[in-house]
């Protein structure tokens, strides 16, 4: 296999290490303290930059700060405000809609490319694989800036194309197109990364399965959808989780494109932009913390429920 030991090491279904090797339990248990020494540096970072911020966000979110009243204990008041705040709810509604439409399209593209690249192995296919993956190496800020220019009515190619026919190009960041405009940016940025994950999983499949299926008379389509897709389902679940987490915390692209969208992308466009605006434009850290914490919890529960329903033995989080 061309990509070496990384795959072959994991393609066996062994889970020895994760269950703890049997038999030598006694001597290993005595080494428990040493084990913790290896984990300790990460554990410190984990406590300081994950547990502490979450706990502190929750603590901050229980207070509210008014000009006249000063800081007072508000209990769950900030959450009650948030879940009745039309600005916050419209952001939540947008990212949910966005996730529901974007993720299937993006996964279909990534899966299709991965299957084609797995089936043909010419020089052009290798070149295409690299080119599709290339946007992953480009920061989301730069990707959003580039697409902002390409969408631009003053000097983007879209308008020039429409000029040939004497038409007016749609402004892809305008109110009626912004959904598709943002979707295009995200697909361009991430489809290649997801494709590579699926492709790597496809390459890890033992090819003798294909031979058996061919002998049984399976066509290329059957081979792809009856055998390959089910065998990479845990990779699909993994990227779905990544895409879900990424979409619900959508920030960079709309934040960058906000300035060139002529007001279509508002300061409450997504929950994260809204939290950022509340914190840094209004210094309303208590309310911003409530939004951050609510967002974190909502994403966590959404992903957890999703994984619970798609779990299978031996896959991520089982």
């Amino acid at each position, binding site marked *: 296999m061309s990509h070496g030991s990384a795959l072959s090491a994991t393609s066996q279904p062994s889970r020895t290490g994760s269950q703890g090797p049997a038999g030598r339990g006694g001597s290993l248990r005595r080494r428990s303290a040493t084990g913790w*020494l290896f984990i300790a540096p990460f554990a410190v970072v984990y406590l300081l930059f994950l547990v502490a911020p979450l706990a502190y966000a929750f603590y901050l979110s229980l207070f509210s700060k008014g000009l006249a009243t000063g800081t007072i204990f508000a209990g769950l008041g900030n959450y009650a405000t948030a879940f009745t705040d039309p600005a916050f709810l419209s952001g939540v509604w947008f990212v949910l809609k966005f996730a529901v439409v974007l993720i299937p399209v993006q996964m279909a593209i990534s899966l299709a490319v991965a299957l084609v690249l797995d089936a043909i192995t010419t020089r052009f296919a290798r070149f295409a694989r690299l080119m599709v993956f290339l946007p992953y190496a480009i920061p989301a800020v730069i990707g959003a800036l580039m697409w902002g220019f390409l969408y631009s009515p003053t000097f983007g190619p879209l308008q020039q194309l429409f000029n040939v026919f004497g038409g007016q190009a749609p402004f892809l960041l305008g109110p009626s197109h912004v959904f598709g405009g943002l979707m295009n940016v995200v697909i361009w940025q991430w489809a290649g990364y997801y494709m590579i994950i699926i492709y*790597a999983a496809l390459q890890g499949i033992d090819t003798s399965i294909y031979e058996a299926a061919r002998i049984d008379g399976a066509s290329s389509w059957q081979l792809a959808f009856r055998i390959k897709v089910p065998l990479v389902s845990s990779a699909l679940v993994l990227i779905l989780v990544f895409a879900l987490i990424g979409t619900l915390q959508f920030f960079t692209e709309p934040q960058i494109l906000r300035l060139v969208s002529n007001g279509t992308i508002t300061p409450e466009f997504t929950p994260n932009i809204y939290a950022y605006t509340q914190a840094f434009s209004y210094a309303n850290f208590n309310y911003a913390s409530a939004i951050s914490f609510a967002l974190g919890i909502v994403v966590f529960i959404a992903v957890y429920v999703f994984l619970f329903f798609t779990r299978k033995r031996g896959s991520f989080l089982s």
Partner: protein
Amino acid sequence: MTTARIDATHRARGRSPQRRVPLRPARRIIPYLFLGTLVVYFLTPIWWLFVASTKNVTGLFDGSAGALWFDKTFALGANLSELFTYDGGIYLRWLGNSLFYALVGGLGATVLAVLAGYGFAKYRIWGRNFFFALLLGSVMVPLTALVIPTFVLLSGLKLTDTIWAVILPSLLNPFGVYLMQVYTADAVPDELLDAARVDGAGEFRTFFRVALPQLRPAFITVMLLSVVASWNNYFLPLAMLSNTNLFPITVGLGLWQGQASANNSGGHSLWGLIIVGSLVSVIPLVIAFLSMQRYWRGGLAVGALK
């Protein structure tokens, strides 16, 4: 017939570009059309970025050649020298900052992940299952939701607007620990570690001399993923930093974009700088990825296969 089919499958999976069983021409062309279309789609913005970087301001806004082709004047050199000297060479400073944050944050996160992954995989530690479940759970916590509370915490310690505010939070990479645990569990045999212990090597010596060399592919993969994550990071430095001298390239270009949009007429030359600045900023990572292909291609599958 059967043997011919098997042979064709074999060949299709990478040993030779030629198939013994010829497909009908239409079926051979469709995948190439599909791939070709995608290559054009994925390359168009990058091509545009390169072409636009060679134009001067007039060419950019009312060029006759169109957005996707070169103008008569080729101003890439002039644009580059303006980029590197504008505002006292602040661009190079941002580029250096990005590189510094990405390497220090990425390397730090990788070292922590390798150590912790090894600890989880090779020691029967107290509370292992509980803490590993906790770790997996935290992969699902959106990291941007931590930015604002982390900002408030660090501002209490007077650490905001310093390099530590960007570097320390990027050391957290729960997914990297998960990848390393999975990889270590399979790639480092317990017998090998026990043999080293029997030979009298201490636990840390065993780790550095015996386990670490086996972990090189996964180490490089987690390193690439962490470096890319730090390099791409926008929300964290945007929230933490206000001193422009500390900005990474992403926040710096965002700042320029804000200034250019706010100032419609005088902003023209700044738009040119943003374009050529974007082009220069994508080069380091693209080179890193192209030259380290064989590592990330295999390594990315580690998590996906489990």
